[in-house]
């Protein structure tokens, strides 16, 4: 294509136009959609913009397909999530299968080839090919290091490799080598464990089957009942496992996004800012709680007027600010409850159990606010990370120190040990919550103020004192 070339908008070539909820293009949209057959694989590019784009009935078909694929991607390999920026992005229509030469074996990455193949004018085509080729190579490399069993060579990784190719290619390769080495040394251990597990499952299966046969021998009805129960149990087990798996995939996608956004925000010119932004946007647009926020955000900072880094800034200010305040509220509430229960509970063991349970629950709630919604294993993993974070940053001492500061030495001495224990527990809980917040946030804190332990602590002391006083008064 030559610069200066123009096309009619009714042209079949036109693949998609960005939508951001503005109205001026309605006339234009009518032009286009009027001329397009409805069964066309390319949805009307300029149909009336929908408030929550991905759920919109207009784009329903493609959006649903995208969602489904995303789900599958989650199940198969967290790494594939990298290709999702384009999949989840609702306003780019998928390329019809087989249309684009370079790519898209799966729908999950319809837009992936667009970047590598966009031609530069001054250097001619050969460099592009080289670029695309190198991107492709790296895509394979990354894929190889990340997943052994799931060798689904998704070409969409080309896009992701393209993102990271400039700055990260060297380090990525050496990391890959390291990881491969580690994996090799653990390989036989894995085989052993897998073999044992398989044996166990096999025995279990055989046992169950013989048991079933025995029951059928006694009575047909009993056998049927037992097989029905077995089937139900198996199905629910499958569903549970699937959920856990998806939750884990979601978490690792979030972590990956976080890496991308951090790079985009703190290293100028880092590649992948746009992909990161689109992925973040898409993942929040999918969730009912945040869809309206994202729709608002899209109107406020449309993609064709703001650069990716600017959009990240607006996203943090507009969308994450609300989520942050929700999370802080949650953390405060939990810290207060923990503090009060610890103060009034008579048994140390009960304290410990209660605190553990509350903290686990709080971490899950915080994660849910940010749309991560961890399953059981996910929560444990998050807890582990959070603890690591807290220990690494010396958070526990900080909690103590902050408490002393807040109360002043003499006041602490006057308070009963029980109350101060409760407050320490509450502060620990708050500290965990803040760490969880940091873990689950898709963007690092940059333009919003990071909530501080001392803020929460101050309110915690106040509210605990008030509730205990209130208790006294009532008595």
């Amino acid at each position, binding site marked *: 294509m030559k610069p200066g*070339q123009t096309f009619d908008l009714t042209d079949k070539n036109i693949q998609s136009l960005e939508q951001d909820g503005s109205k001026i*293009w309605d006339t234009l949209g009518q*032009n286009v959609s009027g001329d397009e057959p409805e069964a066309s694989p390319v949805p009307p590019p300029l149909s009336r913009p929908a408030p929550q784009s991905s759920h919109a009935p207009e784009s329903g078909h493609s959006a649903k397909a995208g969602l489904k694929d995303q789900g599958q991607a989650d199940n198969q390999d967290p790494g594939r999530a990298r290709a999702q920026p384009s999949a989840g992005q609702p306003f780019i229509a998928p390329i019809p299968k087989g249309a*684009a030469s370079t790519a898209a074996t799966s729908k999950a990455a319809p837009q992936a080839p667009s970047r590598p193949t966009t031609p530069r004018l001054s250097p001619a085509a050969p460099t592009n090919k080289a670029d695309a080729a190198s991107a492709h190579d790296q895509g394979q490399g990354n894929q190889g290091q990340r997943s052994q069993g799931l060798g689904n060579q998704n070409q969409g990784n080309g896009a992701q490799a393209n993102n990271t190719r400039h700055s990260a290619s060297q380090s990525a390769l050496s990391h890959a080598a390291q990881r491969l080495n580690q994996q090799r040394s653990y390989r036989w251990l894995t085989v052993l464990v897998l073999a044992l597990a398989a044996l166990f499952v096999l025995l279990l299966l055989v046992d169950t089957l013989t048991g079933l046969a025995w029951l059928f021998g006694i009575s047909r009805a009993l056998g049927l009942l037992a097989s029905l129960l077995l089937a139900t149990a198996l199905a629910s087990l499958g569903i549970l496992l699937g959920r856990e798996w998806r939750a884990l995939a979601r978490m690792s996608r979030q972590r990956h996004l976080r890496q991308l956004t951090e790079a985009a925000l703190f290293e100028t010119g880092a590649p992948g800012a746009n992909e990161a932004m689109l992925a973040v946007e898409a993942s929040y647009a999918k969730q009912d709680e945040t869809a309206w926020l994202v729709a608002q955000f899209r109107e*406020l900072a449309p993609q064709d*007027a703001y650069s990716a880094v600017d959009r990240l800034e607006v996203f943090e200010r507009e969308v994450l600010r609300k989520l942050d305040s929700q999370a802080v509220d949650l953390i405060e509430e939990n810290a207060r409850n923990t503090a009060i229960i610890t103060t009034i509970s008579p048994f140390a063991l009960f304290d410990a159990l209660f605190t553990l349970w509350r903290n686990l629950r709080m971490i899950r709630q915080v994660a849910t606010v940010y749309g991560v919604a961890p399953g059981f294993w996910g929560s444990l993993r998050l807890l582990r990370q959070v603890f690591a974070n807290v220990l690494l940053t010396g958070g526990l001492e900080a909690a103590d120190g902050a408490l002393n500061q807040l109360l002043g030495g003499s006041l602490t001495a006057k308070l009963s040990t029980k109350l101060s224990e409760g407050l320490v527990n509450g502060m620990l809980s708050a500290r965990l919550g803040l760490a969880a917040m940091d873990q689950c946030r898709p963007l690092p804190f940059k333009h919003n103020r990071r909530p501080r332990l001392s803020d929460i602590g101050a309110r915690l002391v106040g509210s605990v004192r008030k509730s205990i006083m209130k208790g006294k008064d009532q008595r």
Partner: protein
Amino acid sequence: METAPPLLHSASVLQRSSAGLGALVSGVREQITAPFAEPTLRLGVTGLSRSGKTVFITALVHNILTGRRFPLFQASAQGRLTAAVLRPQPNLDLPRFAYEANIDGLLSPQPLWPESTWRLSQLRLTISYRPTNLIKRAMPGPHLLNLDLIDYPGEWLLDLPLLTMDFADWSDQVLAAAKHPTRATYAKPWLDALGQMDLNTTQDERAYIELARLYTNYLRACRQKNLMIAQLQPGRFLMPGDLEGSPSLTFCPLPRPRGSLNKSGFFATCALRYEAYKRHVVRPFFRDHFSKLDRQIVLTDLLGAAAAGPAAVEDLQTALTTVLQAFRPGANSWLSKLFRGRRIDKMLFASTKADHLPSNQHDRLARLLSELAFEPANNAKFRGADVSFLALSAIKSTRLAKVREQGRVYDCITGWIEGQGQPKAFYPGELPDSLAELKRGIDAPLAQVRFLPPPNLDQEPQGLPHIGLDRSLDFLLGDLLS
């Protein structure tokens, strides 16, 4: 006065010291009254012709008046801009900026860009805001900021370098440029007429008029071809304003006459008129409107120059550098305001018409501008002013589209191209990564088309679409609204 602007170099010692004294007196007066007066910001919207000054001012005023929410303009994003009104302008002898006519034209069913500016005009926008600053908050409200905006024909800006040149030097420069092969064809009628004339004799007024006309035609041709834009001087020849036909606009550059100078000859008279032009046109324009600026936004049509070719890019760079020498950037403090007069403490370089490129190239456009304006920007930074660069489109007239051709996807823009009834998708090509590449010329030059503003702009849910307007406002006004 080592920091004196070039215009003062040519002034006599007496003039210089009286100018200094005048600045001191007005500075003292300002300092004394400042705490009681409403804070006022004189924003200099600087740009050559067709760089989008009028659209920028119109869009700025409209967006602030309608209370639109800008995500990256902090005062607006935080909802601290309570209201804004247009108030009587401070200079009662200037025409008012035709804001209403401009915005009506843009929002009409057949929208049009504002017509090119032919004279000076002024507008005062007063913004009422809630400060975050504790000291300001302690003061009784309402907290107001007057924003004084001036629109003027960009052609006039190019006169500023004339202040440092006398007639003979300027003529030499213009004549040398006219002999350049790219311009020679346009200059030919004028140079031929010059050749037939004895410049040292007295001439009829008709000769002045004729030569001035031929010279003006040459300037017009150059402007149309985007050539030599740094030297389209005198600017009033192209945009005479209300001086059309006056003797101070009836001269042209001439080669130095041989032999002794005849005091009533053609050359000497033209030199006199040149000096009169400088004294009565250029200097007042500069003194009244540019020497007191607080902040400046420099609008540059880098894309237009790139489309016109490497020579136009060079010219643009020269023009920027020479024009900006006339301004006085630097950090302000109350003491420096008192003794040196006001300085421009923030300078924003904006590459306009960013909507002619898909959004993934905006960063590159800003980067190219930072290379193009390196010298003036560096000078401003050296003197303590804040400098920033961005890609700007005060009113975005296009949308992004992806067009697939032969298996490749191209980032295109769609919009109403001038002269075509239907909106079209348009592939603008890609900008090179560095200015050096741009100056070497790009294989396929970015084709330049003019997009019309889209219809129904006023029905946008979030206000007029734009690129980078909020960031500009945050940079230029943000600290004053804190």
